[in-house]
């Protein structure tokens, strides 16, 4: 805390009142203050400034990263202009940047250079800023003056309405009181009056949370592809637990699909694919809780979705990693590979168009409807409310089934990992990584029914191992992808220079892959000695 971190407190306007009522009461209290007394603090006079009406679109990423970081980003539109206004919880002042009036969605590259962009960049990364809820706000600024008519405290009294459709919904109003640097005593006095005399309660929720509570599902759904650990009971029937988890993952796919089809940012497609991959993993690892024939059909449906979305995601990853990759080249060679970037971008555009057409087509609709029907059918089997699914393990406690799978996958990984030596092909490490993903999903999705400590240790050790295996494979794929550009590049103007530069990059990737391989033995040694949670 520095002297620059000036206190800012936010109170809620009591139900049944509005900002003007609070202001009137505050004026009455301050004018009845110690003016008449000879001793005591100097009199303070509140001066209301002109009211401002603004339309305020709360912007955030689909997974609400700004809200979680304590930031409010509003797109404020007045009659002739628009600006992005960033407020930091409890911090002094706001940062603002002008933006085109017609724009409603922003990627990092759309924002003008400056403080707003600098603050948002590490938080939002590749995610788009999207309108979460539209609010109308009526701000009444009030300056509290000392006897020199100097502002010593600032207040903003705000009435708020959410406007999800045609009828505005009133939200709790807010009173923000901000200290002015160098004047702590008047702040303490006004703050005390608001809290102690007027009985205002500190606002513990954010405006966007208030809107979410009132509007419920009228707000765009936040993505749920990285769900918190599922709260399962150890004795829940395994079939019931698996179906509940698959239902949540299906929700995540549906929540991310519109953003992926509108190409809002690459994370929608990524989160969609993660949810599908997790679902496939549950089907595979918990296969004995399902009807075998139906499970095979649905496993194929999910594999198909993954295949349809794969090329676009692969190219997204290449484009996202491009700047970091070419940064390894000397400055004078970086321009040479620009032509390769254009080729990648064109391929990505083409792959996206194909994927979009497929995901909007009847085959996807049918397969997805089939998946949803399968989940409903599995949940209904049994009909006694006790258990679901129709495989042999459906009614066994989830702790036993999932614990058994975790043990089995872990042991298989240990066996396969021990067989890997310096001469083993890259595929051996790749296969081990795939098993590692299965284990990770099992631990994430079913870990809550197992003893916490061994689960936590296994997750940490697995993560360290997967980092090395992931790096090893990523470099392999990146090198293959760069090589795959060669035929097209060779025929383009400037292609020869690009090929030479790409050759240097491929060499670099090979070095990094070797380094990852050298680290494997050490990470695996830590992993193979773990206690298995059961």
């Amino acid at each position, binding site marked *: 805390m*520095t*002297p*620059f971190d*000036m206190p800012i407190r936010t109170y809620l306007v009591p139900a049944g009142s509005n900002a003007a009522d609070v202001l009137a009461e505050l004026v009455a209290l301050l004018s009845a203050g110690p003016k008449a007394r000879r001793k005591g603090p100097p009199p303070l006079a509140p001066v209301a400034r002109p009211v401002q009406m603004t339309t305020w679109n709360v912007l955030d990423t689909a997974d609400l990263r700004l809200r979680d970081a304590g930031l409010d980003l509003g797109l404020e539109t007045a009659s002739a202009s628009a600006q992005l206004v960033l407020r930091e919880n409890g911090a002094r*002042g706001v*940062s*603002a940047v002008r933006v085109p009036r017609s724009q409603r969605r922003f990627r990092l590259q759309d924002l003008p250079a*400056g*403080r707003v962009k600098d603050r948002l960049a590490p938080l939002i990364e590749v995610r788009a800023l999207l309108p979460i809820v539209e609010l109308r706000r009526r701000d009444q600024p009030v*300056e509290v003056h000392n006897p*020199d*008519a*100097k*502002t010593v405290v*600032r207040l903003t009294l705000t009435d708020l309405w959410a406007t999800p459709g045609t009828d505005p919904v009133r939200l709790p109003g807010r009173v923000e009181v901000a200290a*002015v*640097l*160098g*004047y702590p005593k008047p702040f303490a006095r006004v703050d005390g009056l608001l809290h102690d005399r007027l009985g205002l309660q500190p606002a513990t929720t954010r405006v966007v949370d208030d809107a979410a509570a009132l509007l419920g599902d009228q707000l765009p759904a936040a993505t749920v592809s990285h769900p918190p650990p599922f709260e399962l009971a150890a004795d829940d029937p395994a079939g019931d637990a698996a179906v509940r988890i698959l239902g949540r993952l299906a929700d995540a796919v549906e929540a991310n699909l519109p953003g992926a089809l509108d190409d809002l940012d690459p994370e929608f497609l990524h989160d969609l694919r993660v949810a599908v991959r997790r679902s496939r993993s549950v089907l595979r690892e918990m296969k004995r809780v399902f009807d075998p024939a139906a499970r095979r059909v649905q496993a194929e449906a999910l594999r198909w979705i993954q295949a349809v979305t794969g090329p676009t995601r692969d190219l997204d990853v290449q484009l996202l990693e491009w700047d970091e990759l070419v940064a390894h080249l000397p400055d004078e060679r970086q321009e040479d590979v620009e032509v390769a970037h254009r080729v990648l971008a064109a391929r990505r555009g083409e792959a996206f168009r194909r994927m979009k057409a497929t995901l909007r087509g009847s085959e996807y609709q049918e397969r997805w409807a089939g998946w949803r029907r399968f989940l409903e059918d599995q949940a209904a089997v049994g009909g006694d409310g006790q258990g679901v699914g129709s495989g042999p393990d459906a009614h066994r406690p989830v702790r036993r089934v999932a614990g058994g799978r975790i043990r089995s996958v872990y042991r298989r990984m240990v066996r396969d990992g021990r067989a890997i030596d310096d001469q083993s092909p890259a595929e051996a490490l790749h296969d081990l990584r795939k098993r590692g993903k299965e284990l990770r999903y099992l631990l994430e999705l079913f870990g809550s029914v197992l003893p916490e400590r061994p689960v936590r240790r296994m997750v940490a050790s697995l993560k360290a191992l997967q980092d090395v295996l992931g790096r090893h494979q990523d470099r392999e794929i990146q090198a293959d992808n760069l090589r795959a550009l060669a035929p097209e590049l060779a025929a383009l103007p400037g292609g020869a220079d690009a090929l030479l530069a790409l050759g240097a990059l491929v060499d670099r990737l090979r070095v990094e892959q070797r380094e990852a391989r050298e680290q494997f033995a050490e990470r695996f040694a830590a992993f193979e000695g773990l206690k298995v949670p059961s």
Partner: protein
Amino acid sequence: MKVLATYNIKGGVGKTSAAVNLSALAARDGLRTLLWDLDPQGGASFLLRIQAKVKGGGRKLVRGRADVPLLLRGTDIDGLDLLPADFSYRHLDLALDGTKRPTRRLGQVLAPLEDYYDLVMVDCQPAISLVSENVFDAADALLVPLIPSTLSLRTFDQLSGYVKEEVERPPEIIAFFSMVDGRKKLHREVVEQLPASRPDVVPVGIPAATEVELMGVHREAVVESAPRSRAARAYRQLWQEIRNRVGV
């Protein structure tokens, strides 16, 4: 953090008015701005309704024994803070004289504020002294108000020569016309002709206007109290020129 200083060897040429108005415009543009009222007369502090008093006085400040952030005051303009004047600044030369590296002390006062401000505007006292040498050392640019008269221009030549020849790391000099009386032929001619031959003079003239004089009555920047006035327009034009030249 850029440091600008309004400076002239002569007094009464519009330094303080320029410092207050330019700082206000910087803050309104979203720059975190600090105005340091280094003139013992405390004109800028008065105009911003803040008591011209610094706990411990100038001596403690320049000797590095003051907690600078605790001396700052927020002004009525959000984003603009003031390091107030103090009457003891009249002896600042003496206080500096007994220190190590006496021409670097004012820059060291500002050093802990580096992360908190985008711009510091120093409103200097007139005359060439140890204080002004400190300012020349700390500032990225000197903003020099010029009355369009022969004597004033001669003084400006003296200042430019001194800064170029005597200062180790000379700041950029940006001169502008101040207290311009459009009824006077000499003023009109100088304002029209000089910028063409002197690249360090920007073609902007702050008029000798009643609104500027009324700042002392309203205790507010012209750009705030009379934003549509001729003087306010001239300050905005000047601010744009300065922004472009110093890159803030």
